[in-house]
């Protein structure tokens, strides 16, 4: 096993901690995240209300805790969707060549020629918003990138001797793709996936912020920040608390992604974003 860099440990610990808090949220939250308390509106952070209270007197700390799983679901769920759709498409494109590849890759080119946020908006614009639709939209936005990466990886691998050997044994296409290519393609794919999660969380929370994600009274972080805007001068903590948590999560996930890249695939150094 190669030496695991310290940044990977730190990032991994933070991400794990946030995941645990998100799961335990309902049990450790000091207050009901949706309970109104009109007498304690817009209270600054204190010993009772760690992150203060919002315009309805709801405890911001409990809401941030309750919202954590949304951001995590968006990041991991959307990336999983793009992986599940994109990787098979990329592998098939690499293996079949000809018009199959041409069709898939032209579709990919087309989707990539729409800026990500706008593609997300376009998918969400015509239906009622909700958490799972946002996850699906974000996942679809990143399908073409996954397809491109997995096609490139598979094309490299298809030229290898062990694929030639499998062909000579008379193995079918399915066997070659699933048993020969896929097991060898995982390091770059894991790196791409890990880097993608940051952007999925970013895009998902931006769409929520714009009102196209989970709806009130849900406590998604992007939505909470959007809702805090009218109270920005009297009660900045309503927006700062979820915002800082989101930043912490994003930085940690990004550090993990880049740590994994340096560990598994040093050639990709310096790439990312988008």
């Amino acid at each position: 096993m190669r030496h695991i860099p310290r940044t990977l440990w730190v990032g991994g610990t933070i991400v794990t901690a946030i995941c645990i808090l998100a799961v335990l949220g309902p049990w450790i939250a000091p207050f009901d995240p949706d309970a109104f308390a009109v007498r304690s509106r817009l209270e600054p952070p204190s010993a009772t209300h760690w992150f203060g209270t919002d315009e309805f007197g709801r405890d911001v700390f409990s809401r941030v805790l309750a919202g954590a799983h949304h951001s995590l679901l968006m990041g991991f769920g959307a990336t999983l969707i793009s992986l599940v759709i994109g990787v098979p498409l990329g592998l098939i494109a690499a293996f079949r060549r000809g018009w199959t590849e041409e069709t898939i890759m032209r579709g990919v080119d087309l989707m990539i020629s729409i800026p990500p946020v706008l593609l997300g908006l376009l998918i969400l614009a015509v239906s009622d918003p909700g958490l799972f639709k946002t996850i699906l939209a974000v996942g679809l936005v990143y399908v073409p990138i996954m397809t491109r990466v997995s096609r490139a990886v598979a094309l490299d691998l298809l030229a290898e001797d062990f694929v030639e050997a499998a062909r000579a044994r008379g193995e079918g296409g399915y066997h070659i793709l699933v048993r020969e290519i896929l097991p060898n393609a995982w390091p770059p794919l894991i790196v791409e996936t890990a880097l993608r999660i940051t952007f999925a969380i970013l895009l998902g929370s931006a769409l929520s912020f714009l009102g196209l994600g989970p709806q009130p009274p849900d406590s998604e972080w992007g939505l909470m920040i959007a809702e805090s805007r009218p109270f920005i001068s009297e009660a900045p903590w309503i927006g700062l608390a979820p915002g800082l948590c989101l930043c912490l999560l994003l930085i940690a996930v990004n550090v993990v992604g880049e740590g994994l890249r340096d560990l598994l695939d040093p050639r990709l150094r310096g790439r990312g974003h988008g």
Partner: protein
Amino acid sequence: MTGFLVRRFASVVFVLWAMTVVVFAIVHVLPGSVAHMILGEYATNEAIADLELRLGLNDPLYLQYWRWFTGLLQGDFGNSLTMDRPAAPLILEALGRSAILASISIVLVAIIGIGLGIHSATHVGSWSDRALTLMQYFFIAVPEFFWCILVIIFFAVWLGWLPATGYSPIAEAGLLGWAKHLILPVSTLVLGLIAHVSRLVRSSMLEAIESRYVLAARAKGLPERLVLRRHALPNALLPAITVLAVDVGILMGGIVVVESVFAFPGLGRMLIYAIENQDIPLMMGGMIVITAVYAIANLVADILYAVLNPRIRVSGSAG
């Protein structure tokens, strides 16, 4: 070169045409009646039937598409449903204001991003390089909408230096008033992108510095500054063009967010308005225009790359 230009231009035309199909399909083929969406859930059946007749929604889809598409070609984007005015002038006007934001931002990103990247690469391991690297981690990961909130709290609410929202044209507010409204939106737009560009320039510059042609130039006895400027820099900047083109796409997403936070009357805010109010013609037109701008930006980047590339001769060892 001509062949390349023709091919590249044809692909832009294809992408734009395909976009009209995609946008139309998503709006019309997805479940749910457009008239229902516009009128809301309490609409009577007569009202829906009446609107469907007025918008020609009962015609076959290909006919509706053809009407919309031929309209687009003639610069007719249909009528905005909520404002009851032709959508095209509205979109153009908003595009003009967004273009101000976008062009100032991309110029700043190019100059500052490339500058910082070169500085980092030529001072590897120095405290300024390390500080920049650390800041890049931070700036790339912080969402634009949260930056908006932070700068509004700091500069508009606490310090009161700059207006938190809105826009005023030069003609009304003068140069200073105009600029004041641009500072916060532009700065939130560029922070993440500068981090992105400077990081890429740093790594491609480092790669160039370690290359054989730079070693050869040094061996010739050229002064270090000349080696960097004449041999390393041109090769390092080529990837920056591609990155800047990608960043135009990210910038457009950012503009949607930033404009709606700062209530800046540009195309991004108009798009969100159109989606919120189910103003379908405005939304479709806005989407097409934004894709067109992005496609043209990418075309320009590709042409620049092709023009600069043969003269510079990229080193044979890629990666």
